[in-house]
């Protein structure tokens, strides 16, 4: 009997936890399906006739498809460049225990973005790089690179060194070992790093807010502008919020295992 009571308390606590986590998501989804009149109703309406009008507005009137493409392009190239730079660096850091080097790269993860943003802004505008993908991708690499290095150096350390030693005995070069032996074994690590780096680039607001303008505007900026555009169209803004969160949430659900290991490995946040 006591055990049953404890069970109820336990599941009650878990249910409360889940409810708190989910409530904002659910409220966002519900509100995105409401008309403006239903949203401003008091008391708040839990039952209403849903409309997809808000999503129509987001995609037809606000041009979100373009921002969606911009966000994808920037995140894709930022992650690509980060893997190119980060994988060899992470390998070297893991194999040669280069703690100092690791720290320098990880500093980029620890430092507040705003402290490099002002100089970037000055330099990029002098170089005529404002509102180009180049500037945005470069800035986003600074988000993605530390994630890649952090996760991959930990991952490479878990690959037994005996593999490399036996290959060396066979006369394989380091390049060969890295490219043909280590990388093929690193699939799970690379998936983890790629997923997280992509998500944190996707979610970044600050860099794009300053460095992008009309042509390269990414989704977070578009959502924010939508909020401050004219009188607040809550339904539309909520539909926009759903649109921007959906890819990261779906990616997380698909790669759940990898995301958990990546986040707990270093508690990564952009």
């Amino acid at each position, binding site marked *: 009997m006591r055990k049953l009571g404890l069970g109820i308390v336990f599941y009650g606590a878990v249910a409360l936890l889940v409810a708190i986590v989910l409530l904002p998501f659910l409220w966002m989804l519900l509100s995105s399906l409401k008309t403006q009149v239903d949203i401003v109703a008091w008391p708040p309406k839990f039952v209403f006739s849903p409309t997809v009008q808000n999503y129509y507005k987001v995609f037809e009137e606000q041009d979100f498809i373009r921002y969606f493409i911009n966000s994808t392009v920037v995140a894709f190239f930022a992650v690509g460049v980060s893997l190119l730079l980060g994988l060899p660096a992470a390998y070297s850091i893991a194999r*040669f225990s280069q703690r100092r080097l690791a720290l320098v790269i990880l500093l980029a993860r620890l430092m507040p973005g705003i402290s490099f943003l002002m100089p970037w802004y000055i330099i990029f505008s002098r170089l005529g790089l404002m509102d180009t993908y180049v500037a945005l991708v470069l800035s986003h690499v600074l988000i993605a690179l530390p994630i890649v290095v952090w996760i991959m150096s930990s991952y490479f350390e878990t690959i037994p060194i005996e593999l490399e030693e036996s290959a060396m005995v066979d006369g394989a070069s380091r390049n060969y070992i890295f490219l043909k032996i280590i990388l093929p074994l690193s699939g799970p690590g690379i998936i983890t790093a790629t997923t997280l780096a992509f998500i944190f680039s996707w*979610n970044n607001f600050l860099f794009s807010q300053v460095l992008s303008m009309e042509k390269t505007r990414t989704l977070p900026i578009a959502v924010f502008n939508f909020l401050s555009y004219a009188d607040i169209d809550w339904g539309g803004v909520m539909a926009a919020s759903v649109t921007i969160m959906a890819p990261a949430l779906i990616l*997380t659900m698909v790669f759940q295992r990898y995301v958990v290991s990546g986040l707990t490995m270093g508690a990564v946040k952009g």
Partner: protein
Amino acid sequence: MNQNSYTDSSIRWIYPLPAILFVALLMVFPVLYTTYISLTNWTLTSGAAPSFVGLNNYAQVLVEPRFLQALWRTMVFTVSAVAVEAVLGVAAALLLNRAFVGRSVVKLLLLLPLVATPVAVGIVFNLFYDPTIGLANYVLESLGLPPSSWISGAGTVLFSLVVVDVWQWTPMITLIVLAGLAALSDEPAEAARIDGASEWQIIRLITIPMVMPVIVTAVILRLIDALKTFDIIFAMTGGGPGYASETLNLIGYKYSFEYFRMGQAAVILVVLFLVVLACSVGITRLNKRTAA
């Protein structure tokens, strides 16, 4: 020895070099440049060429009440958010650290706040907090409590923002501590149980001390991230009402990109940089100690 020996021995420099150069170019150089700007009287809007003014900007900004309040507010926000997150996060981890039906689903749900776009989270909470149409006041009224002005009130705004940060980042601590708990050996707890210790005693005297290094790491990582919080504050209040939620990040942004007082903005950025650097040094010290 084969012909690749040259590459082989130098690989420890060649492999990390591009990444290091990149970081030097995009991070180290900008920070030095910011420090230089902080010594000039540059304002973007004056059109005049900047001139070197030594530590004048520091003398002006560092005593400015608005700056000092922002510095203090940054500390209050960071410490209170992370303290709450640590307590709730560890409690949730202890709660979930057992086999039960639906555990994997709960763990998946915990991930969602961590990957949700912060700006959008801020916007959703804006609707939630709206004093006239928001759910928050509806809940208060349903409970028979007086409505609050939440992010519109100077006295409540910081608390309301802490709630958002807690909602979004507590799961991070929970997941890290869960991972730490999973790596623990069951033996000490089992031995204590046999000796007749209560569950609460086991948690307090055995489990928590054993997982403490993990908790400390998680908390310090959160401290640094909380110090950098920009998106939700910018999206939700823009630092307002008045300056009531203006943190160092916000005031740095405003001086740079709204007032265009580059010299003074650079002072704020240098201070912010130093604060975060100090915390980071703290981390490495602690990591060394726990590793030793």
